[in-house]
């Protein structure tokens, strides 16, 4: 697998911005910052963590979302997915 890259996320509700380093998941960083977003499988299977992407280009890594759910509804699994763009705005 290609080398992961770091990117930024912005949480729309609190307007907080965090950097996601190459070796951590979005969820890792949220938890380090005391944001206990619901999770279960941590690998894009169960759907517990699904959130909406409000801006940016997501790099989906889950195994369950349909194209429609990803592209039209903007669903995204922050436990395992990353970003192609520099910044992702999430509805958290």
């Amino acid at each position, binding site marked *: 697998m290609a080398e992961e890259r770091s990117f930024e996320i912005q949480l729309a509700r609190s307007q907080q911005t965090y950097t996601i380093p190459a070796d951590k998941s979005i969820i890792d960083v949220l938890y380090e910052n005391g944001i206990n977003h619901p999770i*279960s*499988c941590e*690998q894009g*299977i*169960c*759907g517990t963590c699904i959130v909406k992407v409000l801006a940016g280009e997501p790099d989906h890594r889950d*195994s*369950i979302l*349909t194209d429609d759910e990803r592209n039209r509804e903007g669903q995204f699994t922050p436990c395992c997915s990353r970003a192609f763009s520099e910044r992702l705005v999430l509805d958290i």
Partner: protein
Amino acid sequence: MIVRNAWYVAAWADEITEKPVARRICNEPIVLYRTLDGAACALLDSCSHRGAPLSLGTVTEKGIRCNYHGLVFGCDGACVEIPNQDIIPKKARVARYPLVEKDQMLWIWHGDPEKADESMIPDYPFHDDRENWPHIHDMMPVKCHYLMLVDNLLDATHLAYVHPASVGGSAPSVHMVAKNVLDATDNGIKLSRQMSNAPAPPVYNNCVPFPGMIDRWQNFEFIAPAFVIQYSGGVEAGKDRATAGAPRFDMRIFHALTPETDTSCFYFWSTANGHETDNPAATDMIDSEIRKALAEDKVMVEAQQERINEFGEDWLVDNKADAPRVMARRAVAKMMQRQNPD
């Protein structure tokens, strides 16, 4: 999660005769029977007079007669006769359920009868294709939520643990490394698994002795809310699946799970033989082997349901291999949401 506006299999067509059968479906007691003309009917299993079960009644020329005080009901649920009484009140009727006979099954609709669209019934032409796919069918009551059997069918990783002596084969790693292709469809999912150069599982070998390793396939289509259409088989490793002759194994299984209550269901299945179509013993062999596997599943899912009754499901953590069942359940949830938006 029981979807009401959906067709479910109420019975095999050959199970239902003029002798009424009581079956609880989607939490409602239903009586299934045939009129003397052979038409299959489904009514609420409770007489509009004093509530007695119609399944204790008798089918007569005019309809099904309740054997408590003798009221008779037609297939549309209306009372047609009250002994020693001229007036038949308009309200003397029982709920009737749309029931369609198709592909050797009786399909029942529990939701709004206006919405009962027969084109939503899945097609399974193999049941009538005795020449190319001779089959055997049966039903088994299982004490678990119907979707737990969908989970089970779409989960290949349990084969190695629950079914080592039947459909599984003994090497867990074969199932773990199988190549899975998983796609969402409009009303469910499609899952196909290929296992190359794998040992033939006991069932395959009992039916068709293979001299060595085989290439196996398992194709599943889940159609929400309650059907799994399976096509599995194997040819000698390296042979072309489309053209390989004997020894080869070709099996189709139709699985229909019908909710009885929230924690129990009816498991209707058929096993069809595609490799030795003119040999009834081969059809019997598949049946008896698959029966063993289903009995193994039943033990596990019923025990699992007891724990889920006690501790719920919210704390359970999915594995990577749960993707197909999670997608299947999402398809059911979507179907449900389309029906009751808000």
